[in-house]
């Protein structure tokens, strides 16, 4: 496991201090923009800006690198499979048997790979700079019932924990002579069954334990709740929200007018 079981990186930067609802609005706007645009350069620019913002907020390169390492296998898969499954357009770069790879296919694959990373980093901006209570309050603040907010926040927080658990499970099977790397592609895919089953069992046990732990600490769905630190939109939030709104509208308009 990399930098701990939680993505949240404690800090007091301007990004940490922003209201979670502002950051959620940023995530929503990012999704709209990234899914709407077909320009590689725009997605690249988005990623550069997001990285600059994260660095400015004091998120270390080491943690950003760890996130990229998690995203890399999926990105690679997209870069390989997309051109193979979208052989349309010209010019054709490779034509062999049923394989047809074209320049537009590669471009679309690159766009899809970058887009997936863009979407992930939009969510990372929220998760890296918002603590658990802020996340729950933010979700409740945008209209989710408290129980849903808590469930979603816990689910997001537990993703890195499951990754860590997967690493340990893999080690436990390797210690019993399990060597998937010595198999062919299909056999290797099948060989991962043991780790996935153990992961599901582990996750179910974890959920069960967590449910009991919540109940033991007095959590009862449907009960009215108070907050120690009520959310408040400050001037910095209003400036950011205005900026996000203007930028989103401008880019949507640009996409609509020019494409």
């Amino acid at each position: 496991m990399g930098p701990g079981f939680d993505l949240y990186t404690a800090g007091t930067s301007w990004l940490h201090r922003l209201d979670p609802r502002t950051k959620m609005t940023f995530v929503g706007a990012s999704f709209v923009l990234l899914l709407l645009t077909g320009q590689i350069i725009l997605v690249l620019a988005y990623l550069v800006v997001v990285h600059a913002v994260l660095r400015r907020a004091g998120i270390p390169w080491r943690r950003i690198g760890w996130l990229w390492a998690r995203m890399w296998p999926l990105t690679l898969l997209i870069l390989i499979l997309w051109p193979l499954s979208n052989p349309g357009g010209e010019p054709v770069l490779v034509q062999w048997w049923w394989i047809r790879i074209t320049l537009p296919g590669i471009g679309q694959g690159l766009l899809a790979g970058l887009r997936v990373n863009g979407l992930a980093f939009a969510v990372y901006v929220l998760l890296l700079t918002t603590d658990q209570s802020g996340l729950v309050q933010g979700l409740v603040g945008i209209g989710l019932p408290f129980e849903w907010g808590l469930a979603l926040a816990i689910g997001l927080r537990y993703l890195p924990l499951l990754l860590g658990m997967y690493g340990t499970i893999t080690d436990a099977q390797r210690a019993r002579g399990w060597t998937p790397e010595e198999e062919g592609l299909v056999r290797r895919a099948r060989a991962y069954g043991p780790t996935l089953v153990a992961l599901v069992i582990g996750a179910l046990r974890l959920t069960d334990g967590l449910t009991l732990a919540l109940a033991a600490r007095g959590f009862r769905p449907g009960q009215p709740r108070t907050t120690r630190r009520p959310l408040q939109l400050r001037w910095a939030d209003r400036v950011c929200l205005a900026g996000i709104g203007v930028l989103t509208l401008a880019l949507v308009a640009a996409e609509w007018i020019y494409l």
Partner: protein
Amino acid sequence: MAECAIELEKCSYTYDGQVRALRNVSCTIEAGSWVALVGQNGSGKSTLAKLCNGLLRPQEGRVRINGADIRDRPVGSVAREVGYLFQNPDHQIFAPTVREEIAFGLRNLGFPGEEREQRLRSTLEAFDLTAYADRPPAVLGFGLRRQVTVASLFACGSPILILDEATQGLDWQRSQGLLDRLQERQDVGHTILFITHDMRLVAERANRVMVLHQGELLAEGPVRKILSRPHLLARASVSPPPVTHLSQLLRPWGMKGDSLTVEDFYLEYVALLAEREGV
């Protein structure tokens, strides 16, 4: 001189280039010995154990198993010589039946069909698991799940066994049962490296102790010698068994201060009384 089962030479390991888990650790574990690895949480015990079966590779130094460097060997190949029991049985269990769970390691290590079946049968019997053979291990209670993972480890017959807090969460009876089986393995010449916080267990079962502190090997030696050094143990946040502590408190009255078990203490105390009263 006994053969060396595990040898670590100036091993260091750092997680993600920032958390230094082991610093320049050198040690040897003789074949046929039972070595307890103790130290506070985060002292590097599990890291050291994982270096011994190749799950982790030292960034500096080398690890030898039965005299051979394991640097270039895959974990699967090292598993023939070094069996590793993880702390949490749920990190291992996946098969639909206990039988298949135990057979998993045997198949991976390439045991032929007949020998596999024979090993499977004898392991199920030895661990009183025959009645559970066709049940899914995931739904068994914790004690039985732990038993299944230990059985799975023993079935492979690796001559070096590494156990990470294997008795944690087990009741006394199951715990003693597990330790007795390990004792049987040691009696036939297998080597045992046992990570634990239970100092009573260390006193009663181990031959030698290794004390880790902040990634460094603070001390290593026979159990009696190490456990009778309270200042050293305190430095590693480890406390001796209560009976050893009591024996140390009674040093001014003539006790040697190195009793490891209640029986040890009783015999020394009775001898001391007899000497004083001229019996």
